[in-house]
């Protein structure tokens, strides 16, 4: 069986090389047959990588420990679900998953473009095949997933207990889908540069890919944060660890990209900027893999230090140099005739939002690589921790939130004072009122007051927008309120889905601010029957119960939680686990989540006598809203991505008839219209 996996990977590599050659030859020599056969080669490559993935999954499920990978990341007692997720627990498997996703996405892009974009798509597919060659070459020659062990061990070493968790099962694939799908817009951008077809065709053709990528990067980051929150047991969800930063940076750049492409689509500006952003996003996905796999930057969870660093760095440098050279080569053709006209315009708001997003990316990048830089320059490693990232990003986040409110409401090109008052009077009033109420309720931190006021301001702008659109439909089409609202979103999904995402971001922001500023913590050693308090809760330790299975042993504490009125609310069960195979303890956190606050109980220690337990308890206000905001972002993205073919056709007809009322309706549906 493992030989089959090796063979499939070898054939896939050959097919990837062939598809590049055939695509380029077919385009240069005007031989469409070669372009078709290159497409078939890509589909066959996808089939080969799929075979390799299946072979590895079968080995994991059958506990075939002759395979080094299965012996290292699985065991016979590992639950079946985690045998499946063990595919991406280690380095070889992760790269195989990456390659598989790349092969699938390349195949889909090849299918979508079998008739579309005949001038550029073959080059884009060649670029994607080039990326695939790098990964397939790694799998074939550098880090091979199907290597055998000289002697078959009786049992595998088991999966890292930290990874035996629901969120960890879905976090890496989400992140990888986000990373890898960013290479499709990148490839089409590169193809635009190669062919010199520099209009916004490449952006329009890959708009859905970009949103898809952003969606999964969002999910990946949220799942990772949720995993850290539920599993790591320190009460927080984000530590600015290099690995987290590596996942966060592409998200920031993709967010900037999704906004700035609207300016190009609408105003034919910022061509160089957009091409640079997508190049940066792709480069950062490689950089992320580089720093997590190379060990150049020490991380709390750098899972495998390995010799992969130089390969990724070389590939990253090669891609950067080639792409930059292309940008310079085409720079004359990329000049834009249009100019910014006024600070009080949507273009300006989007441009500044881009600058801040890229600025945050740079700050995160700088803080992440500073240990390496300082060692190279001054001979001593200097690190910066979470305080650095928080101090830089907290003010920038405020600016970003402010622009989130401004951007969608302000007019393109320029705006008048009258217009400003009409759009922003109500939201500003809501924001100021929130600040005053906050101060009256005893909030004194200026940052929190500003943050909550700005958040309320943004919510106000979204409300104004929804009301405006709803009223337009009510007057023009005489629809009742509820129907007007539903139709407004359903028929202008790109625009109003975007607003839902904005609301999600703001709700998550409120959760982040609340949980960062108001968390309290209590540590206490107690005998069975004793109690202690945190906030308005009283916690009573009732005792332990112990369970042993062949896979793990556990000691679960029962903690009774009493509310301010002394009545029992719930019984929480934090636990200590011990994984037999890995000889490794693990902590099971108990969380009681409410919209107001989260009670987070960690069983920190058990006395040898078994009578005393030490608890670490966190009371974190508003953290609930981080996850709620995440859900709203998911909902918004689904609305944005929802296919809306009929409406588009309808708009086309409306526009051809071109009465003023119809045009107003159509304008509502236009992407980023005003």
């Amino acid at each position, binding site marked *: 069986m493992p030989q089959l996996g090796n063979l499939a990977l070898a054939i896939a590599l050959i097919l990837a090389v062939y598809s590049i050659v055939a695509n380029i030859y077919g385009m240069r020599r005007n031989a469409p047959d070669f372009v078709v056969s290159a497409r078939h080669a890509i589909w066959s490559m996808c089939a080969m990588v799929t075979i390799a993935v299946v072979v590895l999954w079968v080995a994991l499920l059958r506990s075939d420990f002759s395979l080094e990978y299965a012996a*290292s*990341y699985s065991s016979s007692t590992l639950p079946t679900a985690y045998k499946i997720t063990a595919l991406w*627990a*280690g380095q070889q498997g992760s790269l195989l998953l990456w390659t598989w996703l790349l092969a699938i996405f390349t195949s889909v892009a090849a299918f979508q473009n079998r008739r579309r974009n005949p001038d550029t798509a073959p080059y884009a597919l060649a670029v994607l095949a080039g990326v695939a060659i790098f990964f397939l070459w790694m799998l074939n020659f550098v880090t091979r997933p199907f290597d055998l062990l000289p002697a078959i061990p009786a049992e595998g*070493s*088991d999966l*890292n*207990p*930290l*990874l035996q968790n629901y969120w960890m099962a879905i976090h890496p694939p989400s992140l990888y889908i986000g990373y890898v799908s960013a290479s499709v817009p990148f490839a089409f951008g590169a193809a635009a540069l190669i062919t010199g077809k520099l209009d916004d065709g490449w952006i329009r053709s890959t708009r859905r890919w970009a949103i898809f990528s952003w969606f999964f990067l969002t999910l990946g980051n949220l799942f990772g944060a949720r995993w850290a929150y539920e599993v790591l*047991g320190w009460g927080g969800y984000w530590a600015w660890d290099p690995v987290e930063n590596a996942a966060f940076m592409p998200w920031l750049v993709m967010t900037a990209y999704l906004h700035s492409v609207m300016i190009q689509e609408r105003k034919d500006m910022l061509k160089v900027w957009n091409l640079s952003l997508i190049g940066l996003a792709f480069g950062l996905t490689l950089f992320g893999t580089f720093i997590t796999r190379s060990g150049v930057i*020490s*991380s*709390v*969870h*750098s*899972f*495998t230090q390995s010799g992969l660093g130089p390969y990724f760095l070389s590939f990253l440098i090669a891609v950067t140099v080639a792409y930059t050279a292309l940008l310079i080569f085409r720079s004359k053709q990329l000049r834009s005739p249009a*100019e*910014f*006209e006024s*600070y009080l315009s949507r273009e*300006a708001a989007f*441009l*500044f939002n881009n*600058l*801040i997003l890229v*600025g945050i990316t*740079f*700050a995160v990048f*700088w803080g992440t690589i*500073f*240990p390496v830089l300082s060692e190279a320059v001054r001979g*001593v*490693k*200097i*690190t*910066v*921790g979470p*305080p*650095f990232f928080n*101090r*830089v990003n907290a*003010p*920038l986040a405020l600016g970003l939130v402010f622009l989130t409110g401004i951007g969608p409401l302000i007019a393109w090109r320029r705006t008048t004072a009258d217009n400003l008052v009409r759009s922003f009077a109500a939201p500003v009033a809501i924001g100021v009122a929130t600040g005053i109420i906050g101060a009256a309720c005893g909030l004194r931190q200026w940052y929190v007051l500003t943050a909550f006021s700005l958040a309320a301001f943004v919510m106000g702008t979204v409300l104004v927008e929804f009301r405006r659109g709803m009223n337009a439909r009510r007057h023009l089409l005489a629809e009742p309120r509820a129907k007007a609202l539903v139709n407004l979103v359903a028929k202008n999904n790109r625009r109003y889905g975007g607003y839902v995402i904005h609301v999600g971001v703001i709700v998550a922001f409120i959760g982040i601010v609340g949980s960062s500023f108001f968390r309290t913590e209590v*540590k206490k*050693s107690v005998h069975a029957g004793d109690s202690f308090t945190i906030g308005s809760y009283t916690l009573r330790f009732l005792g332990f119960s112990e369970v042993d299975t062949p896979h793990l042993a556990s000691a679960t504490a029962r903690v009774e939680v009493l509310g301010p009125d002394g009545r029992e609310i719930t019984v929480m069960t934090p636990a200590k686990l011990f994984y037999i*195979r*890995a*000889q*490794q*303890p693990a*902590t099971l956190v108990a969380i009681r989540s409410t919209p107001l606050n989260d009670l987070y109980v*960690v069983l*920190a*220690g058990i*006395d040898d006598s078994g009578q*005393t337990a*030490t608890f*670490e308890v966190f009371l974190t206000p508003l953290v609930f809203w981080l996850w709620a905001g995440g859900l709203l972002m998911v909902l918004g993205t689904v609305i944005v991505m929802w296919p809306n073919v009929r409406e588009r056709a309808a708009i086309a007809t409306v526009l051809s008839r071109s009465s003023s009322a119809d045009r107003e309706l159509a304008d509502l549906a236009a992407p980023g219209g005003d």
Partner: protein
Amino acid sequence: MNIRPRFFIGAGLIILAIGYLIGNAMRTTSEYYLTVTEVAARQSELGAQALRVAGRVKPGTVNWDPNTLTLKFEIVPIPDLDAAGAPIKPVVATEPVSFRVVAAGEPKPDMFAPGRDVIVEGKLGAGGVITATQVLTSCASKYKPKQSQ
């Protein structure tokens, strides 16, 4: 009206502000990241500087009190590995360096165990004792099961 230069002023101001934020935060939050050997070499100049020290937990020195959440142990240098992954014996036998670490008020990390590599955050006090605010364990995703089992 000449708009373009005005835009560069706006963009420039934002970039300057970001640069200032980064520079300012660097000055106030950076800390040394040193190995145990480096700490030994620079002991006199470190003073009350915030440190992150990478080292290995010396077996037989670990003392954990679950009631007070106090963890005491010694850290020693992480041996360099050769290409095959075996520790390189130093050519000149040197005095083995180690520092005592006291971490109070934090739960013992699950991955903490004698012989594991850890990063200790804290300050070097008198008598070569590191008062740690945090002990981080690097989690290897791969386990080498004990030979004795």
